[in-house]
């Protein structure tokens, strides 16, 4: 008779890390659908490319490290990283951008630092920043919303652009981005930033067609969809509500103060919330447990710092959006934040 010996506790929740990862991936679906709806197939293709690359890279590194491939390859972390990269990079960026990004994220940022649980930086954001700095042109090939484009961009054409830089009809990316009135359409954040540097007021900048009726055509809905996905995660207790709340509140406060001080040179709080990668960052990037702070207090500080940095960089930095930079900076600060936000142990002063 064999007696089974184990250490307490004997019962256990049946949740698993891989299930958690899967849930987060599922929660990105509303946002991806919104992206597809407003911007076409580009990001889906990028997600696919990044995922395949990430899995291959993960497989190779895991075999080199002689790890349990079966267990770790499909724990969802690599796929989640790839999905986030695919969502983040410009839809019409050349294929090698997402491949390089996924490769960098998995092989260098994640595995070289020790694999799951050991990476100090968020792999997706580190890859994004690497790409943005290394390939600024390709990384700013932001596609305008389909509704504003005068060329039809179906799946095959998108594929063609990504792999050859030209549609089947021979249009280049630059041509695709050109508005019917002859100017190149940028992202709303970029548009406003450019307008402000040209001495225009925010109100004037807001008249751009990419802004549309509310805050930005397409982007606002994508952000809303990610917000929805985020609520699901909070509801499912996959993430703590503290981080996104602190992050959004921080952006809100910063932008609100700035807006009150100078409405002409500062965009509104809601514009900050619903453009760029704000919601993606709040619910899917900053909540990455590995590279973030761990205690509740630490998370509040961590996310608030990120929100502040996003605002500062958006306002004063050279890049229109700032979530990736802010996240990386906060990743660096996380161990320090943890150090200073340790909870008081029961029975200790």
């Amino acid at each position, binding site marked *: 008779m064999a*007696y089974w010996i184990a*250490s*307490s*506790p004997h*019962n256990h929740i049946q949740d*698993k*890390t891989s299930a958690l990862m899967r849930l987060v991936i599922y929660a990105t679906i509303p946002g991806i659908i919104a992206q597809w709806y407003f911007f076409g197939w580009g990001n889906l293709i990028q997600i696919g490319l990044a995922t395949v690359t990430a899995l291959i890279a993960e497989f190779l590194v895991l075999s080199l490290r002689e790890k349990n491939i079966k267990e770790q390859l499909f724990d969802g972390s690599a796929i989640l990283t790839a999905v986030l990269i695919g969502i983040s990079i410009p839809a019409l960026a050349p294929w090698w951008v997402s491949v390089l990004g996924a490769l960098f994220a998995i092989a260098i940022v994640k595995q070289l630092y020790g694999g799951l649980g050991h990476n100090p930086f968020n792999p997706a954001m580190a890859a994004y920043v690497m790409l943005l700095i290394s390939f600024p042109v390709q990384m700013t090939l932001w596609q305008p919303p389909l509704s504003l484009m005068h060329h039809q961009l179906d799946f095959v054409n998108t594929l063609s652009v990504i792999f050859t830089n030209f549609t089947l009809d021979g249009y280049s990316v630059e041509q695709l981005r050109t508005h019917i009135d002859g100017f190149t359409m940028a992202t709303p954040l970029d548009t406003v930033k450019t307008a402000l540097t040209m001495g225009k007021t925010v109100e004037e900048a807001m008249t751009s067609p990419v802004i549309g009726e509310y805050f930005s055509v397409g982007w606002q809905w994508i952000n809303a969809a990610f917000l929805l996905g985020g609520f699901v995660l909070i509801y499912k207790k996959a993430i703590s509500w503290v981080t996104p709340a602190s992050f959004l509140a921080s952006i809100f406060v910063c932008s609100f103060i700035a807006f009150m001080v100078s409405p002409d040179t500062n965009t509104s709080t809601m514009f900050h919330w619903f453009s760029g990668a704000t919601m993606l960052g709040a619910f899917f990037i900053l909540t990455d447990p590995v590279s973030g702070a761990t205690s509740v207090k630490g998370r509040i500080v961590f996310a608030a710092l990120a929100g502040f940095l996003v605002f500062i960089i958006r306002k004063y930095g050279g890049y229109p959006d700032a979530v990736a930079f802010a996240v990386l900076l906060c990743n660096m600060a996380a161990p320090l934040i943890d150090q200073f936000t340790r909870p008081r142990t029961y029975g200790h002063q």
Partner: protein
Amino acid sequence: METVIERIEQGRFWQFHGGIHPPEMKFLTTNKPIRTVSLPQRLVLPIQQHIGEAGELIVKPGDYVLKGQPLTKTTVPLAVPIHAPTSGTIASIENHIIAHPSGLNEMSVILMPDGEDRWRERHIVENYSQLDKNTLVEKIANAGIAGMGGAGFPTHIKVNTKAKIDFLIINAAECEPYITADDLLMREHAASVIEGIKILDKILEPAFILIGIEDNKPEAIDALNHEIKQFDKIKLCVVPTKYPTGGEKQLIKILTGKEVPSGVLPSSLGIVMQNVGTCHAIAEAVISDTPLIKRVVTVTGQALEKPQNVWALLGTPIEHLLQECQYPQQQKRHIIMGGPMMGFSLPNTQVPVVKTTNCILAPSEKEIPDANQEIECIRCGQCAEVCPAQLLPQELQWHAKAKDSEQLTKLNLFDCIECGACAYVCPSHIPLVHYYRVSKAEIRQQKLLDIKAEKAKQRFEARKARLERDKKAREEKHKKAAEARRARMNSGTEEANKEKSAVAAALARVQAKKAQQSGVQANTTNDDKKSQVADAIARAKAKKAGQSAPNGDAGDDKKQQVAAAIARAKAKKLAAKEQANDDSAEENINAVETKPTSAQDDKKARVAAAVARAKAKKLAAQEQPSDVGTDDTGKSPETISSTAEDAKKARIAAAVAKAKAKKLAANTESDDQRTEGEAEASTKDKDDVMAEAIVEPPQETSTSTQDDKKARIAAAVAKAKAKKLAANTGSDDQRTEGEAEASTKDKAEVTAEAVVEPMQETSTSAQDDKKARIAAAVAKAKAKKQAANADTDVKQVEGEAKASTKDKTNVTAEADVEAAGETSTSAQDDKKARIAAAVAKAKAKKLAEKAQKDNQTS
């Protein structure tokens, strides 16, 4: 305090941090009454079932005991007795596996029930309120009651606190899943539980009594409410169900809002907590004089066909309970003692029920599956969210894996109550609590080692100081003894004169030593064709006693050419100086007095050399023994080698005698040991060598060889070793006598005699006749004396070597002295020359505790 009561009356409680809601699974047993199980075939009663110390056994195998009869008695306050749960015979008292996570064995009483269940005499107390506090506490102590909630802390210690108690908290939370033992006890024996609480009330006199119970036990709540209606002092606090509400610190926080400071007992806050089961046992003990011999055990789990609460006698093997509840035969068994959160799995089912056993859990495979594979921590922080001690489990885990005990201590690892909430929620399935347990054990172990090392250091330093002190005392003593002797010698009696002469001899020796140290070379022997040299040197040493007389005997006969006798005596006292001596027949001796002898040869006589050595060493116990070496001698082993080679006609006669005597005395009053090694080698006319060695205590070897007419070879090897160890010597006397004689008649006669004793004496006589050329005799004798406790060591070595060479002979004597004690002598003779070599060695060691005694020479 008032606000606490106000809040409680309003049904508002505080909250502790974290906590979890695992599946309760109490439905398995909660609707069935407590069953009494059949008497098992045997009971196993570990004599220690509580925190503290085991009681002293007062029964022996074969004894017949009655139910309730104590099996151990308590001699120290922290001990708790055990009692016979039923009447029967003590089968044996042996090591038996006990209820411990590591499956340890401990001393247990094996009781074979006789089935009659006969009680010892009991004294029912009608009205316990008439008893005073001390009597009540004594009754609790004698009943063997230890905390029944899990830890098993002796209850009489806990209730005997001097502190002023504000709150007596009765822990009825029973927060662990599956367990319903307290629930059922309260439902069925509410009155008894409340009686127990009242007894505690009388002992502790608290301001308020709070019963903390989770809201998932409505029937127990009703039953208690019914009982406490008329007692305002007792407040029933129905708290929300959350694990681990039943933790002492957690329940205190919930009910009073206070936190027990780390490392402090709750009584310092004026709070004492007792388990409901303990209250019931107290009532039983005080009122009906029933010691703790049974308890309610929840036997549960979906693997059982009939999970139920049972009254189990202490000592009942788990196997019996499982059978009662119909545990199916299956290959893979998973039995947990305690709940699923904090219980431990059992290595087998012979483990007995003890005072702290509240649950036996036999889950089905589906219910509690095998552990999932641990994967990497992703720092999700869920563990920190549920930790009731507000620790950072994941950070602790990193440091535990890195064995960083400093950080672990800093992160308050020792405040972990091992409730298992963190490991329960961990999505990476890391066995966090297990890591903490290992780290805690390692840190405790390290602390013990540190303490040990510190103690060892102190001991070492104390010892050093003591040795230093002893040394000084010894020197002082010697000084006094020397003064006393001087005074005695000057007294003018005959004995004193004798002593004086001995001192004079010693002085002469010292002078010689000085001369040698200043560069005088050892003796060289020159041969003059016809000259005859007869040199006899006799020395005597007298050290402490006045009984030494130097014997020097030198006889020359007419044609004796050369007679050289060298006698050396060395005396060392290592406490003062260390010396190394080298000696060989014709060599140098360092640092020891040497009296060179010049030998003159006459025409026919060539060389007669006689070397006698005597060494005496005195070693202080802690010192390394000095080295005495001859020729190529390295350290402690001394080697004296003499080789005798002959020319054409030379013969060799060698006689080697060794005598070693060692004596170690540790604590003896006085020991006398004598070792005598005598070696004689006589060659007559044509060679006759006889070596004789006589050693007293152990070994004796004597070899005599006689040669034919022309005497070729005579070798005699005699070794004698004597060792003696005696313990506890007050004073030791050891005598070693090594005597070696080598006499060559006709043409050479060498007599070597070595007498060793603290007082060394060496006499060498070498006689050569006309044709005698060489006579060599080497005799060595060593004597060592060591004092057992390092007070004094005296080591004496006397070596005497004589070598007489006749005509054309060379003599080399080789002898190894000491440890090995090997001597080889070869002697070759040629026709006319005779060689007689006699080597005698004697070693004697002596250890004496207080080596102040004088040595005598025979």
